């Protein structure tokens, strides 16, 4: 029963008029029946606060005790509200607010178009506006969403589907255009010619006329699969397509070092404890980190004072010193590494290498600090490359055949 309660409810402040003993009798009697608040002495007598509904109950004890009771004030939220309710301006304002709110929330404020952009979105917007669906219109006057969808679809011939959804003051129109499947691009007529000198191993022709045999040696630029099909006088030009595998040759030279530089961590870890204040660090324990040291782990404890964290932190670092070492690689291992490097180089230079048919080490030079090898490879790879059909080819298609 504190002041807080008086925000709600209705209370009356009452002045008690009478001689001292009468007021005392009255108070004793009333306190046994009713809750009282703020009983205090003032210059003109005793004042008490009772619930507004209890004022009536004071009459009889007052008469019997010979005390007069006078209401001197009203307290509590109920009186405040009733005071407000007596002012017509406030009531009108509240009603006007709700009325305006109701009217405004019935309007369409936004019309969004989803699914299409640019010109098509504008077309959707224009079609919707023609149907009366645009910002500022009352939503209650709009037809059903399904009806709007049908009408919109009728106005937008390119749309496969139109959806209308209203959420509050926002209407979202989703339009899905017909997707026209674009025809596959037809490549222009072409031959497949050899990219480099090779011995034909195999071929797979999807379109066109193969004009080479297995085992045949071809020169760069030689036609492998002709794009001209049919009899020579009535030849039809197509885009030759397929794969022609031929054996080609590569010489690969690589140099591999016999020494390797490493970073090692043979030395034990060190600890460093520091206090960090802002951007500065004060080392408490351990040596400052050297340039070769690696910070393994840093743990931070931020000092906090209640909910405020201070810009002071304790940091414990684990540091590991790094050493640079050079190790020697055996002759054998260096040769192995060189051959590996040569193969890697081959795959890098080759074009879709299918198979390695020959691997011959032509030269090996072993020095103290490096190994040099030169390897000859025979590999099978796709050697076909598209080439346009010359006007001259039309007269005698088939190349070398």
């Amino acid at each position, binding site marked *: *029963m504190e002041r807080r309660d008086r925000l709600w409810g209705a209370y009356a402040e009452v002045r008690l008029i009478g001689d001292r003993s009468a007021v005392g009798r009255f*108070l*004793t009697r009333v306190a*046994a029946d009713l809750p*009282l*608040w*703020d*009983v205090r*002495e003032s210059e003109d007598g005793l004042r008490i606060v009772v619930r507004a509904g209890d004022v009536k109950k004071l009459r009889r004890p007052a008469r019997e005790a010979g005390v007069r009771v006078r209401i001197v004030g009203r307290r509590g939220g109920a009186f405040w509200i009733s005071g407000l309710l007596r002012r017509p301006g406030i009531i009108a304002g509240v009603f006007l607010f709700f009325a305006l709110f109701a009217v405004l929330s019935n309007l369409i404020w936004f019309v969004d178009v989803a699914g299409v952009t640019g010109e098509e979105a504008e077309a959707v917007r224009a079609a919707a506006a023609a149907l009366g669906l645009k910002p500022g219109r009352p939503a209650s006057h709009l037809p059903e969403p399904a009806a709007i969808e049908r009408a919109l679809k009728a106005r937008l011939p390119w749309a496969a589907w139109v959806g209308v959804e209203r959420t509050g003051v926002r209407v979202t129109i989703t339009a899905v255009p017909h997707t026209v499947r674009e025809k596959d691009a037809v490549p222009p007529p072409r031959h497949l010619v050899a990219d480099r000198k090779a011995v034909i191993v195999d071929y797979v022709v999807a379109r066109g006329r193969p004009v080479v045999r297995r085992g045949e040696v071809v020169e760069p630029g030689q036609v492998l699969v002709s794009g001209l099909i049919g009899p020579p006088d009535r030849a039809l030009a197509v885009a030759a397509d397929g794969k022609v595998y031929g054996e080609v040759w590569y010489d690969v030279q690589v140099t591999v070092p016999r020494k390797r530089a490493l970073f090692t961590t043979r030395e034990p870890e060190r600890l460093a404890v520091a206090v960090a204040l802002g951007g500065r660090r004060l080392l408490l324990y351990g040596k400052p980190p050297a340039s070769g040291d690696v910070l393994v782990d840093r743990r931070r404890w931020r000092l906090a004072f209640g909910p405020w964290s201070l810009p002071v932190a304790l940091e414990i670092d684990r540091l590991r010193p790094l050493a640079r070492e050079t190790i020697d690689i055996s002759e054998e291992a260096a040769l192995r590494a060189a051959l590996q490097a040569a193969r890697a180089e081959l795959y890098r230079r080759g074009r879709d290498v299918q198979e390695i048919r020959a691997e011959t080490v032509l030269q090996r030079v072993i020095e103290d600090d490096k190994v040099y090898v030169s390897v000859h490879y025979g590999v099978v790879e796709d050697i076909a490359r598209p080439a346009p059909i010359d006007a001259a080819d039309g007269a005698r298609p088939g190349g070398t055949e």
Partner: protein
Amino acid sequence: MRRLRRWFEAGVRVAELPPDVVLDVPRVTAIGTVHLYLENHRGLEAFSATEIRFRTATGRLAVRGEELVLRALDPSEALVEGRIRSVDWDRSE
């Protein structure tokens, strides 16, 4: 009857029960010298800005001080505010 009550009080002490709950005696809680909270009183006897007297089950309780106000008063609880000088018991049961 008096002897029976003394036995009962002794029993409550031995059993460590909260006496104010079991014995129907008043409970006085003071916060400094500005608040005094009285539970389980039996009525207001006198009120003035310098002295407030309550009847309780264990006798008369007189709160004396200056600018005393009964912030809240209902049939069993009372909250006194003001500058409290003394709290006296008159044990004439």
